[in-house]
């Protein structure tokens, strides 16, 4: 990881929304940092606090406690300076003036960002090109498909060329192909070509693994794990549950496997299916024990793949 000062740094960040029965915590003492130029992912179930986190960084929500800094600027004390340096892609696809064309929308937001009319026109035209919207540039935004609106949404975030971009579930509601196209565009344009620091929230595991150099997993407003997706998967594999499917019942096998040092626990799901909680990757002893078993093994594999395991482990029992 870079030794440069972090592009995003939060410490003990907390936020609670008012509720009828008292404050409802959305973030509880979150501390993390994102390096300049990093593509950082926030991953977690619904209600984990991901969107609240992005809205705090975008100065749309005021934190209840703790500090958040973007490029060294405090989001609560210096919101105007922060907003000049960030681009926000919200998950709300209906965030344009529907009766205005894509070009008019982009020129308007460019003007709000302080670009002069001539510069706004040029910038809007350039981004409409980059995001494949030139042909539809003069059509009302309300006639756009979800995929086109999301591309317009990303283009809007880049109008003033901010160094930091927040993407809140950018592929939400997109079909597989549109999502893949947008992901490729995000990776190539934002980080590859423009060197932006990107903070992404998503529910899509493949998206997270494909785009993000590092990931933080939030659960109920708390940071449960953080690191490179591959590392998190490897760490999760350290105590991963494997599913063993046998061709026929083998009553003695569960006892034999439970005695092995690599096996923390064995649960019989049925007469022919066992779940093994391992202390690490399956070792030679375990493979040997399975090979020596009297019954043929039909399948032996992790119960969940990749970040699903990480996410499940992040959740309290």
């Amino acid at each position, binding site marked *: 990881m870079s030794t440069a000062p972090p592009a995003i740094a939060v410490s003990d960040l907390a936020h609670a929304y008012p509720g009828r029965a008292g404050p409802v915590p959305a973030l509880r003492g979150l501390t993390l940092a994102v390096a300049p130029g990093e593509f950082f992912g926030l991953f977690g179930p619904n209600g984990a606090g991901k969107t*609240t986190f992005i809205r705090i960084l975008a100065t749309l929500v005021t934190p209840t406690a703790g500090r958040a800094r973007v490029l060294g600027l405090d989001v609560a004390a210096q919101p105007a300076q922060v907003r000049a340096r960030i681009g926000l892609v919200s998950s709300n696809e209906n965030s344009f*003036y529907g*009766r205005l064309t894509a070009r*008019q929308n982009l020129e308007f937001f460019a003007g709000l960002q302080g670009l002069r009319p001539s510069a706004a026109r040029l910038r809007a035209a350039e981004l409409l090109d980059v995001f494949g919207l030139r042909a539809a540039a003069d059509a009302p935004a309300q006639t756009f498909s979800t995929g086109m609106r999301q591309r317009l949404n990303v283009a809007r975030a880049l109008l003033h060329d901010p160094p930091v971009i927040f993407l809140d579930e950018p592929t939400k509601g997109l079909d597989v192909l549109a999502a893949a196209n947008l992901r490729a565009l995000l990776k190539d344009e934002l980080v590859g070509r423009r060197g932006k620091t990107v903070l992404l929230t998503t529910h899509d595991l493949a998206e997270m693994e494909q785009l993000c150099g590092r990931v933080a997993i939030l659960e109920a407003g708390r940071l449960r794990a953080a690191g490179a997706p591959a590392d998190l998967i490897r760490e999760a594999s350290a105590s991963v549950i494997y599913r063993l499917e046998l061709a026929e019942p083998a009553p003695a096998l569960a006892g034999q496997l439970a005695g092995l040092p690599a096996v923390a626990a064995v649960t019989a799901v049925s007469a022919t299916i066992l779940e093994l909680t391992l202390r690490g990757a399956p070792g030679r002893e375990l493979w040997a024990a399975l090979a020596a078993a009297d019954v043929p093994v039909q399948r032996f594999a992790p119960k969940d793949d990749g970040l699903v395991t990480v996410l499940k482990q992040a959740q309290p029992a």
Partner: protein
Amino acid sequence: MTRLLALTRRGLLHAASYRLSFFGNYLGAALVLIFYRVLAEFYGAAQPAALAAYGGDYFTFLLIGGVLARFFSLGLKQFARELEHELTAGTLEPVLATAAPPTLALLGPALWTFLEGLLIAAAQLAAGALLLGADFSRADWPAALALGALTLLALSGWGLLAAAFVLVFKRADPLSWLADVTLYMFAGVYFPIPLLPAVLRPFAYALPLSHALEGLRLALMRGEPLAGLGRYLLILLAFSAALVPLGLWALRAGLRHVRRTGSLGHY
């Protein structure tokens, strides 16, 4: 300046995209002049003594009251109306996430309507004078402009309060209703305030628009110079000094509230 231009242009483009309503607005502005003329003809010579202070010309009296009340009512209602529209359209959050100052982002969407309202009011007064016989031959225009600017400022203070109300409670209805009733019932738009029952007159004079219309009619119909309008200027200045800071404070407090509660995007 760039941001003001962007907001004004956006307002124009949005308004013009509703073509029928856009042109209907201008047609309505023309038709209302004919309505005022017909109404003035209907009353004919039976004009009350209360009009004597303005020279007894009911058409000019009505034209000034109707046209300017409509324009000034924008100050009362338009900030809230535009803000409500931004909330329901989902555009408020992206606008507030830009580098534009939040107060400008919240109030700016009303800019085009104010500009359009000003142009329509000027055109109505001109058409009233050139085509329908309104008499502005003695008008002191600089005095009227100064009084008009102060009136818009005073009413905008109330408009800021209405916008803060929308930001927090998401609906403008209660304040909008109140604004309409107070404007057209009590402010002397269609008749001189002394014609109101005595018990209602204090309510009328509690409104800045009542003083504004009185002062403007004196400036436009009798040519009263600024020096002779001191009472009206002072009253409007007092309303502005009280309402504008209060409105700005309410708007900022409203913004702090929605940021704290995370309800900025709610509607």
